[in-house]
Structure formats: C-alpha cells, structure tokens
C-alpha cells in the first residue's frame, strides 16, 4: 500500500496547546456565570411580582405595574444575548427567550393563537412546547406594551409567559453551572472526555466567535435593520420599539462585550478603547426607538455608532486573534 506522505494526527498535540496569556477562567467566572445568575434572579423576581400582583387583583392584571420588573429582566438578558453557545442554543432556548428579528411576524401570529386558543395550552408543560416565536421577552413586550387592545383577556397568557421565561432562565443557569455545566466544559477544554472542546484553543475560539458575532449582530441587525438603505430607512424594523429599548439594548450588549474582552484579554488596549468609543457614542444617542434613522442629522449619529462598532470588531480581530491563537473559521468566513 502506498504511503508516500504519511500523515500524523499527533501533530495536534504539538499545535493544540493554546494561548497562555488569555484568561478564560476570568471571563467565565467574572462575566458569564454572574450574567446567567443575574438573569435567573431578575426573571424570578418578575415571576414573584407577577404572582403577587395576580393574588392582589384577584386574577385581573394591570400590565403597566409589571413593566419595571420586565425591563430589569430584559436588561439582564442583554448582558448575555450574544452568548449563543452551550445551553442557549439547545432546543432554541435563546430564541424562546428573545425572538428577534421576526420579519415574517411569526411571533404575533403564534401569540394570537395562544391568546384566543385553548387555555390548557397555558399550563407550564404545554406552554413550554409552544412556538419559540410566541414566548419570552418578545411575547411579554407585546402584552405589556400593547399597540391595540388585545382580543381577549391577556392576563392568563401574561402569567404563563412570565413563568415560562423564569423557567428558561433557570434552565440556562443550571446548564452553565456545576460539574457537568458548560462553564466547566469551556474550562476543561482539551482534557480527556471533553468532546465539545478538543483543545484549549477551541474553547478560546468559541468565546472569541461569540464576541465577534455579538459585535456583528449589533452593527448588521440591531442598527443595520432600522438604518436600511440610505434612501430607504426602515424605522419600523428597530427592535423593542414598544418598550423604547432600541438603543438601550445594544448599549447594554456593548458594555457586556467590553466586560468580557477586558476579563479575557486585559492587554487588548486597542480593542477596549475602540469598544469604549462605541459605548460613549451609543450612550449619547437619545433614540429609544431609533426613529432618527429617517432624519438626516440624527441618522448620521446612528451611522457613526455603527461605524464605531464595526471598527471595534476589526480592531479586535487584528489585535486579539493572534494573541488568543484564534481566527475566523476556515470554511465559515467564505462561501464555496
């Protein structure tokens, strides 16, 4: 048999030792795990408040009283929304928590079905099987900030959605913690039996991919969708317009990405400074609904934030990737 160029898979043992400097443990312990704990706590608080509100009002509900707790939960989610790996991606959990964008209006349609349908589907076990598009923060926002009067009493659906959201948050938190948790998988990368991350570099690559993907999503989707084309802005595509969170959402996300970057690679001064520039510019926007995309002067300021986010991504790629020993995927960055 011919073996004109024998090929050694053992090479991986030499090449796969990974970066020494970057602090994955700090990123996991100081940013990721506290983030999931905070989100679980915030949704549990929303559930407690919803339950007591229902008890006090005898099953009636005034959605406005639940808005502050809803916003706290939403804030907590935006610190995590961009961490798409591990328990978040299993069974569409991240989408069940926050279904956006939804250009086909799947969420409103599915939610209307629940509102007008068989009340039995609101029981926790059945509700957990309903479409991800109808549930979570996106579903709650429609109920708490209704554009038009709902076709039926929204209170039972509101209660079921809150309960389901708190459950999803605790499932996520549990999936990240403990000996079998995803945090442990990340930190034990390269050890025997860890088939998720075969080397430390793979774990680093996965975290870096989240960071890059988060910045890209802000620039292309959260900002890019409402910005639309120069001659055709699409303000109606801004996210969370009803609750006025369009800017707040990506500002919180940017801050969380910056925290992770600083924990992972404190020496990435250029990247951190670039992220700070984007955060400062986003903080100055007074655009709760990003309606300014249609106004030339305000649009320029929104475009500037988009440019700064993209620039932070470019700088992160050139500054951090070589230090972490990672890159963009061989196949994923380029078509066939």
């Amino acid at each position, binding site marked *: 048999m011919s073996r004109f160029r024998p090929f050694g898979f053992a090479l991986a043992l030499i090449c796969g030792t990974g970066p020494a400097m970057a602090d994955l443990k700090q990123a996991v312990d100081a940013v990721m795990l506290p983030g999931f704990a905070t989100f679980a706590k915030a949704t549990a608080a929303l559930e407690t408040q919803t339950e007591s509100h229902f008890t006090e009002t005898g099953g009636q509900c005034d959605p406005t009283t639940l808005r502050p707790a809803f916003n706290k939960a939403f804030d907590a989610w935006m610190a995590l929304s961009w961490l798409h790996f591990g328990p978040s991606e299993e069974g569409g959990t991240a989408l069940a928590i926050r279904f956006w964008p939804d250009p086909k209006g799947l969420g409103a349609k599915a939610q209307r079905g629940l509102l007008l349908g068989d009340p039995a589907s609101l029981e926790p076990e059945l509700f957990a099987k309903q479409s991800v598009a109808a549930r979570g923060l996106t579903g709650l926002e429609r109920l708490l900030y209704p554009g038009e009067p709902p076709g039926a009493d929204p209170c039972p659906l509101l209660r079921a959605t809150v309960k389901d959201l708190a459950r999803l948050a605790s499932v996520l938190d549990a999936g990240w913690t403990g000996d079998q948790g995803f945090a442990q998988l990340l930190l034990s990368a390269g050890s025997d039996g860890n088939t998720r991350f075969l080397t430390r570099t793979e774990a680093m690559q996965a975290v870096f*991919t989240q960071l890059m993907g988060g910045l890209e999503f802000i620039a292309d989707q959260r900002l890019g969708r409402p910005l639309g084309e120069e001659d055709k802005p699409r303000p109606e595509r801004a996210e969370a317009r009803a609750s006025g969170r369009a800017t707040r959402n990506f500002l919180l996300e940017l801050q969380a990405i910056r925290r992770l970057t600083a924990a992972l690679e404190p020496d990435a001064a250029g990247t951190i400074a670039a992220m700070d520039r984007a955060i400062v510019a986003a903080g100055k926007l007074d655009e709760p609904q990003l309606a300014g995309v249609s106004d030339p002067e305000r649009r320029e300021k929104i475009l500037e934030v988009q440019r700064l986010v993209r620039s932070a991504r470019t700088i992160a790629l050139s500054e951090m990737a070589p230090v972490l020993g990672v890159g963009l995927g061989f*196949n994923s960055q380029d078509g066939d």
Partner: protein
Amino acid sequence: MATRRGFLAGLASLSLPGLGWADVGSPAWLAAGKEGEDYVLHGLRSDGESLFSIPLPARGHAAAAHPARPEAVAFARRPGVFAIVLDCFTGAIRHRLTPPEGRQFNGHGAFSADGALLMTSEVVAEGSEGRIGIWETETYRRIGEWQTGGIGPHDMKRLADGRLIVANGGIQTDPSDRSTLNLDTMRSNLALLSPEGEILEIAELEPELHQNSLRHLALVGEGVAVALQWQGELSDPVPLLARWEPGRAITLFEAAPEEIYTMKGYAGSIAANQGMIAISSPRGGAVMVFGEDGTPLATHRRADICGLAALDQGFVASDGGGGIWALGGAQAPLRALRHGATSWDNHMVPIG
C-alpha cells in the same frame, strides 16, 4: 458478476496495470484541506485515518473519484483555473486540466458510471453562463461541452440511468475574483440533462425565493436532495433544504422555529443515508439531520463544520478545526473519529 468484474478489470487495464482503489487501502472518501500554508488532498479510511495525502497548488474544493481506477480529480475553488488528475497510488499528477479559453471551473465534477468520461461544472467567465465540460479519461482530452440551462452551476449528480442533475446556483461572479454581480436579479435552478447532454427539464423556486441558491446535491429516491444558500437578508428565515424528482416541482423543507437561524442562511454540504438527509453549516457551526420527508430529527453543533458523507447508519462530518466526526444516527451525539492539524475544506467526496 463475472461480467462486471471482467468489465472493471478491462477498464482499469486501459491505462494502469490493473490497480484499483483497494491497492491504495480502499479509502472511503476524498477530502481537501489546508496544513499550515499548504493545500492537500487526502484519501481517508472510514475510521477517519488518512491513507494518502497529495499536495495541491492552491485551495481545493471538491473532488471526483474515478469509479474503478485509484485516480482522483481535485478541483480548485471557484472560479477555478485548475483541475488535477492525481494518481492516488504514486501521488503523481497524471494530468493538469485547464479550461478552454474563456471558461472557468466552478468547483465540482463527476465521472460517468463507466469512468470513460469526466464532467466538470464550468462557467463562461464573462456572464457566468453554465457549461459542463466533457473530458475523455484516457488522456483527459476535452471532447466537448454542454449547456447547463442556468448561471453559475456548482454541484452535479448522476442518476442511475445516466441522466445528470445540475445545480445552477444562479450567481454571476466577477471572472477575476469571487465577488457576486447579480444578487438582485439572480435566479437559481435545477437542470436535468440526458446522458448526451440535452436539457430535458428545468425546475426553479417561486419568484420570492429567487435569491435562494440551489448549490449542493445528494442522491435521494428518484432524484436529489438539495442544500441551499440564501443570498438575501439574513434575518429572513428561508428553507435551506429541498428535494427534487424530475417531472415534479421542487419541495422545500422548513426548519422548526427554534432552529430557523441555526444555519445562518447557509448550507454548505449535504449527504443522504438510511432515510435521512444531513446538511451542514460552517457559518452556523451545525449539522441538521432531517428525515427524507423533511421532518427535523436532530441538530449537532460543531464550529466550522462542513464536509459531510454517509457512514454506517448515519454520517461522517469534517471541520475547519481538524476534526472528523461520526454521527451515529439522528439522535446520537457527535463522536470524534480523528482530530489533527488539517483544516478540512468544504466537502468529503465518497469513493465508489
């Protein structure tokens, strides 16, 4: 069987001294990859072990395996200037195929069942109109070309009766680089060609999905399963899996709502086995497994995963991080077969 054996032996003896794939260890698949700064083509055994590796002059894409002789044609990425006929026994380059003036290879190719002809997917450089280049396989002389009935043909599959299905991806590219020129007006289709190259039938998607590029094929039933790549807005979730049997309309299969963004609008490879169809997305870092009727069965996660082929009761997959994975059935988790220093490119091409 004696007839068949005699036939194969006769074929092999035409140019090589009776060598077959068994003489190079019976590799199961061909796969292109990158090692350091070098590009290679490997022959892989079904446990993922590399049996041979042959250097390539630039990044490869897919390959085609001769049905009898241990001879592989490695294709450059599109738009391609090379296709190389490799002797997998000696590692020698037997022929270098260059497209005729004004033509470019477009990533894929296939042999006729008897191995006498090689068909290569090509574009007319200006305008990306599709052609199938026809080469005889004794001396690899070009002996003709066929129209594909569309723009930017990519993958092709030969049906059992010799007819050919070509995926005209619909994308016009700049002849000098990979930039796309017609995303606003593109229209992809599937073309059925007779064994003599006559266009028998063309099927396309409904107009609102005109930016959905039909690109990679796997044989299923009387036709093909198709992996698509969405060229429209990423936030528009569209089906990335289709089936087509000639004489019928194309059927599209939607992902479940919780998986609509999993593939990031991009299916890079496809394989079918045991009543299941798998599609991969290096962008989404996932392989999704469906039933042949389009029922979603499972989603497996792995960064930069792309190459796919049938293996035992399930599939084998390769990734850009050097991993080769077995997917037992629909539900079994990914099992690492190998992990090494080769960044595996888009496809695993079955031999035999």
